[in-house]
């Protein structure tokens, strides 16, 4: 629990955006993340959602879990659809065909719809400078189709397409640094967030929505099904990811890095790994390799924060 917590929880906005009755897995960290994001975004938004878990669990005909205007079309184009939404709002207000209510365009996608198949559309939207907020709900694999690896899957994690085996350590590559790619577009706001730190996350979502131009927020969304962890540990795992330095929380405002929560001294990586079945096969050597990398990356991040 960092800073706020007891009682402040009661002061958070009441609205959820996502109604109960959605079909997310028991203990879904992404459903929680979406709820928290929606609290911060309020009602005056239009959401474009990529294909993925959140789309499937929230919108099975004939009903919907969304209390806000929401559109899903395809897997790889959430940012492009949001570009269209934003442009339409702009021109219709300009032409007096719609009252100027300050409605904002938001795009949501999982790690696949963001850092793999959706990367091109996202890059295009960021580069064109649309006034939109893109939120990536990263659960570190293609969970919707049954836990296949993505470029956001962490090193060593066992998934159905990067299974651990006699000749396989699980995922062979290091997690793609998506926030850095967003930063490279020179957009006004980039941040990482976690629903396990809901107040920090709400603050960032509000900021991302308020800036004029594209904003990108990368949210770690714990997936008990894909991570093979106990459903009741979803919030805890989100915190441990931050405290171990695996997923540091920071923001980049106009290129300036700022650490949101400094968890140092970092917790040992095993505190995080041991709770997840996807890392059960890890050898000591590999765990050490991950530990070293995390410390190294964390130091690099801190450097960026002090430099800017």
């Amino acid at each position, binding site marked *: *629990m960092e800073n706020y917590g007891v009682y402040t929880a009661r002061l958070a906005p*009441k609205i959820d955006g996502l109604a109960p009755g959605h079909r997310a897995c028991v203990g879904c960290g992404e459903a929680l993340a979406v709820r928290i994001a929606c609290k911060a975004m309020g009602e005056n938004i239009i959401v474009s959602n990529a294909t993925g878990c959140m789309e499937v669990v929230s919108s099975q005909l004939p009903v919907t879990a969304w209390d806000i205007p929401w559109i899903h079309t395809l897997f790889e184009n959430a940012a492009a659809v949001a570009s269209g939404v934003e442009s339409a709002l702009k021109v219709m207000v300009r032409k007096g065909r719609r009252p100027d209510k*300050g409605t904002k365009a938001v795009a949501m996608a999982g790690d696949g719809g963001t850092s793999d198949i959706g990367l091109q559309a996202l890059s295009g939207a960021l580069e064109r400078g649309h006034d939109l907020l893109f939120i990536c709900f990263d659960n570190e694999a293609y969970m919707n189709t049954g836990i296949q690896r993505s470029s956001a899957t962490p090193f060593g994690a066992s998934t159905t397409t990067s299974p651990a085996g006699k000749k396989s350590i699980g995922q062979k590559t290091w997690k793609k640094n998506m926030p850095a790619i967003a930063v490279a577009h020179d957009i006004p706001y980039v941040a990482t967030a976690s629903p396990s730190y809901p107040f920090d996350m709400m603050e960032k979502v509000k900021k991302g929505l308020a800036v004029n131009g594209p904003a990108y927020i990368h949210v770690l969304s714990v997936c008990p099904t894909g991570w093979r962890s106990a459903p009741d540990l979803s919030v*805890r795992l989100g915190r441990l990811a931050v405290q171990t330095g695996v997923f540091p929380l920071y923001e980049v405002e106009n290129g300036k890095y700022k650490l949101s929560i400094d968890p140092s001294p970092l917790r040992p990586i095993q505190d995080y790994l041991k709770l997840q079945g996807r890392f059960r096969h890890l050898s000591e050597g590999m765990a050490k390799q991950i530990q070293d990398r995390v410390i190294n990356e964390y130091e690099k991040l801190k450097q960026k924060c002090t430099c800017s």
Partner: protein
Amino acid sequence: MVKITIDGREFEAKEKTKVLEAAKSHNIYIPTLCAHERVVPSCLSMVEEGLAVQTNSERVISERKVAIQKLLARAPESPAIKELAKESGVESTPFPLEDHQNCVLCTLCTCVCQEVVGVSAISKINRSTEPNAIPYTVNFDACIACGSCAYICPTDAITLTDEGNTRTIIWPYQKKNFRLAKCKVCGRCWIPERQIEYMAEKSNQPLEFFDTCLDCRR
């Protein structure tokens, strides 16, 4: 349901809703500072049949500007008020600047402390509108360092920071350091000791129950 008109557009609103809520639910923007859905010291006007509201007439805009100029004089350094001023086209204030350390006496902090937290550590007793005077008194013994007042304060007059084993809360002209308790397992500072005492007392749990942080709890 009652019929109301906002800016010439007709709407239906549920009885006993506030005008602000009705406007907001139709995405009509009215600038506010201390309106809050749970704690409501302000913006209390209710809808009634036939009510006509203007949010952007010339008179409204000019009166809003004066109000903002007054706020700006009282809390010239508050980011929220600077933002509000910018948004409303207020560049400076004709009123004399006063130092109240960003406090505009909206009472949200006292309401929250009393109604939500239930400890009433911040009180209106000795409330003063004079410059350089304590606007609200904080009873440090009652305060549990939860930070709700800092969270809700719209003008950043109250701040909360954690550093090392200390949580510091700063209110206008008042400041208190709270020691943070260390988790017996991981050694991380996780919660103010004062809050543990409060929780133990309220929940009838033994103090040892709070020896470990949430993440080290079984």
